[in-house]
């Protein structure tokens, strides 16, 4: 791995910038699609077919863009950290495969539901189960990445472990946590999308109340488990910057409390923003804990990075697009921002 280090040396800052940017894409994905996935999980517990249809219709104009952030993150990892892409994805074969199946089922259910008449039930379930599976297996991927994996030696080290290496109690737990967190986000999202006098709004209110506590327990559990399981995390959290982590933790608790208050007072947009802040803080803390690892104990971001000239090319070619991409996505979301009272599916 020596040569890769020397090649990238002068470009270390670019590596860091791209790592942050990919983290940003992933975070956007978690925030945006997390709500959509959570709404899907919610729909599993809502047996009214009209309401399920309404939930799907509420994301008709935006789900594709939200999901595409995952593709952007994946593509950018391939572009900027090919050594991680080639080994990490191979290691994650099974959970990624299951995630993809979930995404496929969910995407077609969203599209086909509009056109179906007799088969709407099938697509309702497809949407719900697809969402659940996607959230769970994506959570497993995250936990499995934190565990690291075994690499071969040689100039370009590749994954040389077994297909089931990813599965441990910890990665299973992160999958569960992801489902609960998404479920909370989904409830908050639905409340912001529907008129206050709709049935969905009421159901989502009860739902967010319950999910709030579940999510609190799940996230606490993950933090504690991470602390005791991973030396790299423990050493960071009790290292010289311990106060920053404590501070972040404190702000998260405060934001959670504010979210709860906003939610109780039916300030739904505010609740959504507080939840967003919580994700941002958690994700930021996770990135800070990880640094300089891309995959803890396995690849640092410098090992995994693209050789210098490619990274520069990628940066020059792409950084200008990021704000533009954000701008038109924001515009699209803005057009579809209003609350829904009544609406229609493409019937017939």
């Amino acid at each position, binding site marked *: 791995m020596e040569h890769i280090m020397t090649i990238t040396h002068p470009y270390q800052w670019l590596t860091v910038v791209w790592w942050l940017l990919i983290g940003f894409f992933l975070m956007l994905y978690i925030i945006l699609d997390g709500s959509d996935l959570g709404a899907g999980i919610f729909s599993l517990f809502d047996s009214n077919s009209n309401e399920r249809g309404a939930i799907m219709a509420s994301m008709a104009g935006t789900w594709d863009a939200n999901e595409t952030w995952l593709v952007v993150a994946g*593509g950018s990892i391939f572009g900027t950290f090919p050594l991680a892409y*080639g080994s990490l994805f191979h290691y994650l074969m099974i959970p*990624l495969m299951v995630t993809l199946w979930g995404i*496929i089922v969910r995407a077609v259910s969203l599209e086909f539901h509009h056109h179906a008449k007799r088969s709407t039930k099938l697509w309702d379930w497809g949407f719900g189960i697809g969402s659940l599976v996607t959230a769970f297996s994506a959570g497993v991927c995250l936990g499995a990445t934190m565990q690291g994996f075994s690499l071969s030696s040689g100039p370009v080290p590749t994954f040389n472990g077994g297909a089931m290496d990813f599965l441990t109690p910890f990665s299973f737990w992160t999958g569960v946590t992801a489902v609960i967190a998404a479920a909370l986000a989904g409830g908050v999202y639905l409340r912001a999308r529907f008129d206050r006098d*709709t049935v969905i709004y009421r159901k989502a209110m009860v739902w967010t109340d319950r999910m709030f506590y579940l999510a609190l327990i799940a996230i606490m559990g993950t933090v504690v488990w991470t602390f005791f399981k991973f030396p790299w995390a423990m050493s960071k959290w009790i290292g010289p910057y311990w106060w920053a982590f404590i501070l972040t933790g404190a702000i998260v608790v405060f934001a959670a409390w504010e979210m709860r208050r906003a939610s109780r007072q039916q300030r739904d947009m505010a609740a959504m923003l507080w939840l967003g802040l919580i994700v941002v803080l958690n994700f930021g803390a996770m990135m800070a804990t990880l640094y300089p690892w891309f995959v803890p104990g396995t690849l640092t971001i410098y090992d995994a990075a693209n050789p210098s000239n490619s990274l520069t090319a990628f940066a020059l070619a792409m950084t200008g697009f990021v704000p533009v991409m954000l701008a038109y996505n924001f515009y699209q979301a803005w057009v579809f921002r209003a609350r829904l009272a*009544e609406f229609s599916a493409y019937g017939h």
Partner: protein
Amino acid sequence: MTDPTLMLDLARLDFAWITTMHIIYPPLTIGLAAFLFYSEVKWLRTNNDEWYRLTRFFEKLFVINFGAGVATGITMEMSFGILFGPFSQAAGPFFGNILGYETITAFMYEAGFIGLMIFGWGKISKKMHLFATFNVAFSSMLSAMWILVANSWMQTPTGVHLENGLFLVDSWKAAILNPNFLTGFPHMAIASFEIGLFFVAGVSAWMVFKNRNGKMFMRTLTASLMALVIVAPLQIYVGDELGRTVAEHDPAALAAMEGHWHTYNKDGTPNTSWNVIAWPNEAKGTNDFQIGIPHMLSLLEDHKWVSTVKGLEEFKIEDRPPVLLPFYAFRIMVAAGGLLMLIAFWALYLKYRGQFTAEGLQRRPWFLRLVIFSAILPYIAIWTGWWTREVARQPWIVHGLMRTSEGVSQMSITAEIVWFVGFVVFDLLVWVGAWYFFAKVVRHGPDMQAEVVHQSENIPVGSLMTDKIDHHETILIRPTA
């Protein structure tokens, strides 16, 4: 269970299946998006409601296809790393960059406008809507361009050198504008237009055939078939250029596509025969039987009466691609291309004779039936074209530089089989679903009652009112108690 050849072949099969099930959607997306832009412009120019209804009708088909493309496409993005990890690592500095460019400049670009295009009717101004449609068409073409950059570089990897197991880029320009790209991309772009136009033609012909809004659908039938009069021959011309590019840069692939084993005949003269049909025998290194046309091969590849075209015998056995599949796949594609051109010319002839009207064509049901069924031909051409291309590149994953066996992830056979079975099930679900709903939308026909969305100003921004205006069924969500 570790059998390296079986493992490799399974990984190839896994990858081949998912690409095969993805490639049937994006080209139609590209072609149909361009067509939607055309018909929307027509509507705004002529102010004729029929163009509006046609646009909305084909847009429904577009949406189904788009959803299927996204569902199968996300798999593609992830599967390079999963199935071909070492290849992804080695080629990452170039190949990964290009796919990264694609996601940022094309997918995200497209995703940012597609919602506006489909659900924005009446919520944004007409101009803004047209702009959204334009961007969808443009960005989907950009996506095809980047994908073709990546794939054609695997065919003719210029502008890089291999160092410590990584492909490092010496010249971005040379690597992006590699020889195969310069003809491969136009060929793919035209294929996309061709599939889009034949799709529109097929659906329109069915409507005329059933005489359901026959007059209205004559507009799209005429527009698409007349465009094909230019597009279909152009595709054959560009295909020929592509074949010559392959002949120049990857003679082994060309020889496999043509089932061409011997450079010279037994009497020492150049073997210029082009095989129409043949049964290749790879073990013996010759064809068991063949029917060929003398001089055709030289004419096709060199545009000369007599020239030498390298036969497979000149390559080491371990460097020879499989022959049977590229040979027949290539012929099927060419036949499909030829047929499509003939159909377009027939349409031109009918138009010239003044018989290209709804009544005129209804008196010629065979022509309409032919157009309906020929909509399947571009699909077949696209499949067989890619199979030719990918299989004839073997045994290389990056031609001349990296073997497929060096690029494959070391996976367990069980995992590969699980993958295959899973994606067969899910991709078939997508495929069957997509065609079922295509059929349903077509049977239902265009919505002729809905009011045309004229004044965006009157409609409250941000409500999902469009469909109400369209008189689609409306679900009321109100408190039950």
